[in-house]
């Protein structure tokens, strides 16, 4: 090997090497950061603060300040949940070793809550004595399959998964899943497996309360065919929000609250619960087993079960509140908040709720089969 090294122009080359490194760093950093996720240590050590993790845009920050004013308990509130699976991967290493995740409260969707409560036992009971407002929990949500007595969980907000579409692009209203598949233009479904496959199962008349892989098989086949033919061109999380507004998407499986927020600015975007029914879900407040401030965390959730506070939360996020007495409080707030009372996606009637389905619990083995089949259709399995 011949070592032929020129020593001229070192200055510039050094500059280039460095800018190359810097550039490499800038390009790779987001990937690495995305993989690691943001850390964060929960609360101070004085015992008068709680640390909560929640999904993005899922609160009115003024409510946290109001809580601190009323109770003197400081709140470290982090919006670091974007996806149930991703968040699970983040907390798993610590919780599986019984180490703190620096959080006293986390908010996860029904099925993930069920996994943490029943399968892994990584959460601790809520402190009943600190939650007198639990009596305001809506009857329909009082005893879900995964937590019959609501010992470990309380719903934060609920919502309905249905179809959102941009009427300018589709040129026609959409009322059923088959109409959704037939309409021209780019369409996407959700990466959240239970929402996507649940809607399709319901449209084929398959019961979703007690799902099994065998029962769901025809729905998976239907989804697979639609992806293969290009009738469904992608899977996403709530990125569909911007694309629908811009007309880059004709239609998408979508979450009610998101759409309620888009339709405020863009009347061309519409939301329909399919005639066969939408999927009804809740995100649940849980206390990790490693938190030693369960009492304070329970006081925090209690605050949001006061109908007046719950109404302010609803006015901001426009999902379905699990708290009774919210419509009356919304009326009291007046203005735009009062108008929400007439929106069935925010204040649903019993009849509206009855036409929706809940995706029942899956056993560990079954869930694995569901996830694998779904990934296969997604192109990653």
């Amino acid at each position, binding site marked *: 090997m011949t070592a032929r090294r020129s020593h001229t122009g070192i200055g*510039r080359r050094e500059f280039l090497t460095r*800018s190359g490194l810097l550039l490499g760093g800038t390009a790779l950093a987001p990937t690495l950061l995305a993989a690691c996720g943001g850390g964060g240590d929960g609360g101070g050590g004085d015992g008068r603060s709680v640390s909560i993790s929640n999904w993005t845009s899922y609160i009115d920050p003024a409510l946290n300040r109001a809580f601190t004013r009323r109770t003197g308990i400081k709140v470290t509130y982090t919006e670091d949940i974007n996806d149930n699976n991703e968040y699970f991967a983040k907390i798993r290493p610590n919780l599986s070793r019984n180490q703190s995740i620096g959080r006293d409260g986390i908010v996860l969707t029904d099925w993930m809550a069920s996994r943490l409560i029943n399968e*892994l036992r990584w959460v601790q009971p809520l402190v009943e004595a600190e939650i007198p407002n639990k009596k305001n929990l809506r009857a329909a949500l009082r005893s879900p399959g995964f937590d019959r007595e609501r010992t470990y969980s309380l719903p934060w907000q609920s919502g309905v998964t249905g179809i959102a579409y941009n009427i300018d*692009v589709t040129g026609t209203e959409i009322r059923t899943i088959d109409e959704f598949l037939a309409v021209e233009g780019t369409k996407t479904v959700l990466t959240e497996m239970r929402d996507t496959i649940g809607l399709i199962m319901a449209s084929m008349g398959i019961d979703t309360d007690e799902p099994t892989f065998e029962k769901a098989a025809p729905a998976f086949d239907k989804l697979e065919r639609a992806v293969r033919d290009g009738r469904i061109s992608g899977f996403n999380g709530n990125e569909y929000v911007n694309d629908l507004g*811009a007309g880059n998407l004709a239609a998408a499986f979508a979450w009610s609250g998101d759409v309620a927020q888009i339709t405020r600015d863009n009347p061309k975007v519409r939301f329909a619960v399919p005639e066969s029914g939408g999927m009804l879900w809740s995100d649940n407040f849980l206390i990790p087993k490693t938190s030693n401030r369960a009492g304070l965390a329970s006081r925090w959730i209690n605050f949001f079960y006061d109908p007046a506070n719950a109404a302010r939360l609803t006015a901001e996020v426009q999902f379905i509140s699990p708290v009774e007495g919210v419509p009356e409080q919304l009326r009291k707030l007046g203005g735009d908040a009062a108008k929400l009372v007439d929106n069935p996606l925010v204040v649903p009637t019993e009849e509206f709720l009855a036409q929706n389905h809940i995706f029942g619990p899956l056993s560990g083995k079954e869930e694995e089969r569901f996830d694998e089949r779904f*990934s296969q259709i997604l*192109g990653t*399995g």
Partner: protein
Amino acid sequence: MIDRDPEGRKRARLAPWLLLAPGMVWLFLFFFFPLWTLARMSLSSRPSRFANPTFDWNWSNYGDAFSRYGEQFTRSFTYAALATLATLCIAYPIAYVIAFRGGAWKNVLLGLCVVPFFTNYLIRTLAWKTILGDQGPLVEALRSLGVLAADGRLLRTPLAVVGGLTYNFLPFMILPVYVALEKIDPRLVDAARDLYATTWRAFRKVVLPLSLPGVFAGSLLVFIPAAGDFVNAYYLGSAKTTMIGNVVQDQFLVQVDYPVAAALSFVFMAIVMVSVVVYARLLGTEDLA
């Protein structure tokens, strides 16, 4: 007693080791140890889905990685190869012009190539989603020109994914190619011309061979991260354009199957290593600076 060499200089026995130590510690902590952990993980099995995997020489993970994800492996390396080729075609002329015709503007021109990349990687990729969108200006222009069919689209096609990779990794090709070209003594080209070489022949016989080390370095800097990328395929692609990075992400985050994900990563590294060696043989790297 101090050791001295025949000329009476002190023999520093420890110094080289001390100088090496920080690098060795770094390498051990951030390279060998993670690699070893990954290797163990790839040979582990899970008693149940969420249990921590235990090491038991479970080679079947590799079987799974190969048999189930062959399609995504092929796609990843094809896309990465296409993106590398495309970056080369775009970067070489740019680097050439800057190196030989840039004059006093060299640094400014290089800066212009690099500055857009100070924006976050994810944001730049998402911007392409808007540009390539079905109702975006680009698609409409191409449709009216007849390049795209009336229902033709760009977003969620392989073209969009390869295009995204090309765009995102372009500077990694420009910079090394530029460095290689800049090192070339222009008088060599003059000499070739004096010996009656045409411009093209002078380029082919003098400039191109001398710039190959830059091309080699640039290709590696583009090919390796492009093959492992999952962001472009996720945002610009569809279910039919998933790459191996997407599979690893899915195995880690959704299936919670760390052993298979680790095996996939190892297979990926092995393929990259073999292709780099083959490529180095073909191009000859003894002249790499």
